[in-house]
């Protein structure tokens, strides 16, 4: 369980986050989303007791980050953004250091280190020097050290940044396997990743939380128009003009000049696709494509982070 109330952090005079409040229940997987420099890492660093907040309060598993710092650190696994590792140690040696720092007793040491090594697919690299590993494997070592001593809260700062697609899929699969009764908070600026992994998304921009909801709710709430893609053959312009006169249609735009592809924006309350199909038959046009576009999390994100402060509705 993670709770934050009015977290504020200043670096000198520069405010990194302002009045950030949220609550994450036990066992939830939550994505922390925001553009670069939005304050994601700052918030995570406060939660992991790396640094204290300038004001506000944060509790992890019911413990205060300032007063019970050591006890919290005992319970969390943290993967920092830059994946700092002791590059001159071997993977196994480094993990043994991390395990003993986290209070794993000597008796359980070998079993525990071997467990995370196999969980992260590092068996073949356990004897290699960390500095000689590729970026993807270093990320796995970073994840492995976070998993030591079975933490009840896992905080991952940009776990897939800078990896090739193969490794990204592997790491995501790993994170998915880690769900269960663990609380997982992961930050990212890659939206499909968050949509795929998380039950809930917290969107942060310029140090303030702008939205908190599940990916599907965010999509439906912010979808102000339904977009339909239409491709026809035959007398296309005439056809397009006819569509504009249909009820519920707000805008018809050609995808690019010289093509017969259009994007039609309509009121979400009515579905005009049957009417378009009927009209195509009537006008003797060939219907090549007709489908609605789902507003992706990407669009929502852009809407939220570019929204006017007056709140006059989203720009698209």
């Amino acid at each position, binding site marked *: 369980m993670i709770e934050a109330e009015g977290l504020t*952090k200043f*670096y000198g005079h520069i405010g*990194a986050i302002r009045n950030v409040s949220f609550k994450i229940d036990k066992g939830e997987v939550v994505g922390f989303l925001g553009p670069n420099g939005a304050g994601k890492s*700052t918030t995570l*660093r406060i939660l*992991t*007791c*790396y*640094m*204290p907040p300038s004001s506000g309060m944060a509790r992890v598993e019911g413990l205060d980050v300032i007063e019970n710092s*050591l*006890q919290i*650190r*005992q319970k*969390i696994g*943290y993967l*920092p953004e*830059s994946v*700092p*590792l*002791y*590059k*001159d*140690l071997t993977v196994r*040696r480094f993990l043994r*250091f*991390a395990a*003993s*720092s*986290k*209070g794993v007793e000597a008796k359980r040491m070998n079993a525990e280190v071997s467990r995370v090594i196999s969980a992260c697919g590092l068996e073949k690299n356990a004897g290699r020097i960390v500095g000689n590993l590729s970026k993807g494997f270093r990320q796995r070592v970073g994840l492995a*050290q976070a998993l030591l001593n079975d933490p009840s809260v896992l905080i991952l700062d940009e776990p897939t940044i800078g990896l090739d697609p193969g490794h990204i899929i592997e790491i995501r699969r790993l994170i998915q396997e880690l769900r269960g009764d663990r609380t997982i908070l992961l930050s990212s600026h890659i939206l499909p990743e968050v949509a795929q992994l998380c039950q809930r998304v917290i969107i942060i921009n310029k140090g303030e939380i702008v939205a908190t909801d599940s990916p599907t709710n965010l999509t439906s709430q912010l979808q102000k128009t339904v977009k339909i893609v239409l491709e026809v053959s035959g007398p296309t312009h005439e056809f397009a003009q006819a569509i504009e006169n249909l009820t519920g249609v707000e805008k018809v735009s050609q995808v690019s000049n010289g093509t017969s592809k259009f994007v039609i924006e309509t009121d979400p309350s009515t579905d005009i696709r049957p009417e378009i199909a009927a009209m195509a038959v009537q006008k003797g046009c060939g219907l090549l494509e007709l489908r609605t576009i789902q507003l992706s999390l990407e669009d929502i994100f852009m809407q939220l982070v570019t929204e006017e402060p007056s709140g006059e509705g989203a720009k698209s």
Partner: protein
Amino acid sequence: MKGFWPVFRKELYQMFMSPIFYAVGFTFLLVSGVFFNFILSQVVMVSYQVAQHPELGKEISMMELFLRSFLWNLSIVTLFIAPLLTMRLYAEERKSGTIELLFTYPVTDAAALVGKFAACVTILAILIAATLPGVIAVALVAEPAWKLIFSGYTGLFLLGCSFLALGTFASTLTRNQIISAIITFGALLVLWFIGEAKTTVSPVLGSILEYVSVSKHFEGLSKGLIDSRDILFYFVFSVFFLFLTLRQMSSYRWRG
């Protein structure tokens, strides 16, 4: 002191994995070997002359002469290697970002600091101890001055610990290891020679300068005079700089 052993072991591993340690160790042992040879031959020559003119050297113990010169030279070599042992302690952790791991593991800042410092002290103790067999061999052949050897080596070790404590603090001031080593060199050289300035300033200031000079407190110990004031000085000196290091840690945390 939760977390002392893991950090201590990690630091030793890193030290033994690092080429800097081997270069420093090799140089230290080579230079101390050269000094040993050099000083021993000089003392042997002096003892020949004393043997020819017994009235000159009734009060001079050849063993004391040898050991004092040798330990003074060793102390200068230690002054040069101490910054190289401590320069990476915090500078590297900050540069590579691993301090973030150290700060978020359930390890207190004090335990991490003591672990790091103890690892450096261990390395220094190993290097200093490696010069002992030669000295013991001379003592067995010439004069069994065990108290003198004990006092001199204790002094050298305490002096070295003070150097390391100052170096540990200096390594928190910058992310650059070389700058950290240079700061340590500078500070140690000033503290080494500062006592010499006493004739040029007022008597009160002069005695203060002499007191804070790290070399002055080594004089007695190198002669076999174990004075608790000198031992206390080195102890307080080390604790003071370790305390400053701990303050730096809190400062990092607040600044982020």
